[in-house]
């Protein structure tokens, strides 16, 4: 394991300092450190952030290795500044048993680019009918604490209530994909002015909000912890704000794309903009930014959803839903939140590292950049300006809505427990991850 001396990095809320990483931990922080190190990095102008934590990643393995593998997905995560990702359960087979979550967990260990914390399915086969063996998944080597049928909503109120209650036994949390299924049959995009003109099936905001309203009430009733995935509407924000004001244990995430893009883009009928939940209106984007800034929304989560080219290179109606996001998340957040003055970099660290790690109950992640802490950190260059080029991505898929867009900022280096996974903006070779 190498020692790294990072020179002149901008620490949150303080002056530029040197950081010495040795033995997987941050050994020293100070001005003009004289320690010997194998690698010295000039970090002038770079911000040192805690390694990012994603609550919502689709790694696709097992089953859809044509879209992504644990290796390529964690490489993309490292390039985006992440040191831990939560791998969603909608794989083939579904991660609804101890065996599958352990497989994903082990693949993550073998990758070495980013910690992989598997998410367990709430119900068998994501079918919403019968609870999966939540306890077994928790007790497995994967130590699952976050459970989600993401991609599908746990729409049966009784099943949702039982899941919320059951996972209390091991401090688990149910992460709900809030989508009332009957109201979204055949839905293709946000229901509003644009869907009416385009003749695409509408996905009303109320389909999301009605489930969130029900779930916060259920969580309050049984005294459980609820996490709301990818909040996308202004109305959802109001419900979550109300639930938090009541003192209920409710957390929520927003995706980078819902902070930046609107349903006006669907006018192109380009399926790269097709995503679940759908892109909403400018008013919704405004409300989501505000909620992330004031903490009503706790975390940014990518909902990184890789798809092979053929699933997007087609007509809108048959295209797959989802966007890749790991490698652009921090830049999008800079553009939407930091450069607009809504959130400072301390806030970014809080919403993209501290709070998501706390929600997932991860140990060793989301910690401050200070002496004695595990060296999970990212050096980010906020002054960089570049054009998004999907061909440079580490993810196996190319379904990004930001192709050709100018976005600010770039990850310069990422460290996972003192091991560099990214240096000078490039992935470190697998054989050097030691």
């Amino acid at each position: 394991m190498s020692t790294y001396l990072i020179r002149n990095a901008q620490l949150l809320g303080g002056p530029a300092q040197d950081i010495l990483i040795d033995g997987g931990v941050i050994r020293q922080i100070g001005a003009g450190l004289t320690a010997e190190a194998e690698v010295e990095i000039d970090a002038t102008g770079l911000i040192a952030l805690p390694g990012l934590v994603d609550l919502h990643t689709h790694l696709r393995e097992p089953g859809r290795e044509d879209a992504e593998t644990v290796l390529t997905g964690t490489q993309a995560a490292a390039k985006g500044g992440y040191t831990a990702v939560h791998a969603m359960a909608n794989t083939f087979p579904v991660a609804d048993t101890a065996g599958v979550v352990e497989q994903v967990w082990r693949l993550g260990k073998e990758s070495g680019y980013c910690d992989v914390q598997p998410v367990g399915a709430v119900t068998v086969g994501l079918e919403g009918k019968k609870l999966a063996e939540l306890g077994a998944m928790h007790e497995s080597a994967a130590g699952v604490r976050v459970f989600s049928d993401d991609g599908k909503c746990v729409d049966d109120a009784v099943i949702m209530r039982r899941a919320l209650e059951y996972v209390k036994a091991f401090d688990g949390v149910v992460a709900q994909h809030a989508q009332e299924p009957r109201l979204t049959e055949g839905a293709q995009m946000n229901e509003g002015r644009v869907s009416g003109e385009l003749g695409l099936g509408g996905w009303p905001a109320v389909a999301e909000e009605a489930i969130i309203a029900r779930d916060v009430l259920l969580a309050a009733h049984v005294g459980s912890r609820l996490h709301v995935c990818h909040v996308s509407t202004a109305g959802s924000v109001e419900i979550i704000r109300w639930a938090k004001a009541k003192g209920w244990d409710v957390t929520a995430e927003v995706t980078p794309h819902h902070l930046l893009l609107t349903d006006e883009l669907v006018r192109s009928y380009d399926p790269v903009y097709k995503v679940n939940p759908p892109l909403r209106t400018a008013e919704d984007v405004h409300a989501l930014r505000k909620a992330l800034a004031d903490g009503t929304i706790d975390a940014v989560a990518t909902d990184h959803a890789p798809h092979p080219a053929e699933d997007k290179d087609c007509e809108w109606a048959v295209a797959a839903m989802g966007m890749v996001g790991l490698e652009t998340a921090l830049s999008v957040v800079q553009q939407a939140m930091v450069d607009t003055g809504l959130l400072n970099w301390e806030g970014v660290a809080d919403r993209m590292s501290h709070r998501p790690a706390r929600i997932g109950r991860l140990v060793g992640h989301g910690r401050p950049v200070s002496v004695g802490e595990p060296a999970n950190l990212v050096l980010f260059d906020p002054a960089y300006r570049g054009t998004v080029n999907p061909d440079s991505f580490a993810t196996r898929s190319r379904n990004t809505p930001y192709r050709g867009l100018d976005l600010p900022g770039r990850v310069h280096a990422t460290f996972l427990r003192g091991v560099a996974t990214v240096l000078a903006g490039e992935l470190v070779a697998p054989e050097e991850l030691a």
Partner: protein
Amino acid sequence: MKRHLVSAADLSRDDALLILDTAEELAQLSGRAVKKLPTLRGRTVVNLFFEDSTRTKTSFEVAEKRLSADVINFAAKGSSVSKGESLKDTALTLQAMGADAVVIRHHASGAPARLAQSDWLHGSVINAGDGTHEHPTQALLDAFTMRRHLNPGLGNDLSGRRITIVGDVLHSRVARSNVLLLKTLGAQVTFVAPPTLLPIGIDSWPCEVSYDLDATLAKTDALMMLRVQRERMNAAFFPTEREYSRRYGMHGGRLARLPQHAIVMHPGPMVRGMEITAEVADSPRCTAVEQVANGVSIRMAVLYLLLGGATLADTPSTNQSEAAK
């Protein structure tokens, strides 16, 4: 000059009038013994129909043949499409075969826009109806029919004419194309439907909305009845066929309350007994059959202008899908 006709919003007022006027000239052909023109000789037009269609496909085919084009009918059923071939590969295949124009009918809204914006094929794309989005040649033939009855003459538009469109606006590509084109031509459009069959956001469309057919009859120069599929009532859009007919159907009593000069239109296929009674459908004031004949002239004009060298006025697109690119 524009290469494609994907949306009625692609057409400026000048474009639209040029098509209507050209169609008037071409319509005179149908009175002749020999109905063929050599205009598109040697050009290949593919009718790419992913959805069952009898009248639109036949109409295009007649138009293409009268212009002497080489016509290829590519029905999705029974072709490689039914074996899972993608729209992209189908388009690449047609491109390789040298299609100069592709007339596409597709069940997915936006499929013609995808074809037109992609580099999959280089010929003209003509939208023959996409999902619940648009059907621009239908709107053109409707406008042609209206102009003949309400403001005949080359170069005339539909300024101030009051057009009432009744029925399932939510699922209607005819309604969407009509409202766009009729606005361009200066007409005033009123949609009449139960609230369940109007799209969210219709308040931003260039039209009036009413839930009351009887209240709008007297203020109507042309009344267009849209087909209402019986299966809609299974999804609770309205309670029963009888109730729909009573509240929104066109019958003899309502026909009598239209102004004397007003016409009743229907894009077909009609569901007799549902949105229109036989008495109205077969009355001389119903233009449904005339619309079919006009459809051939309009489609000839569109093909002639897109492919035949004469140019549509080269105006910037008002199509929002273009603007969003």
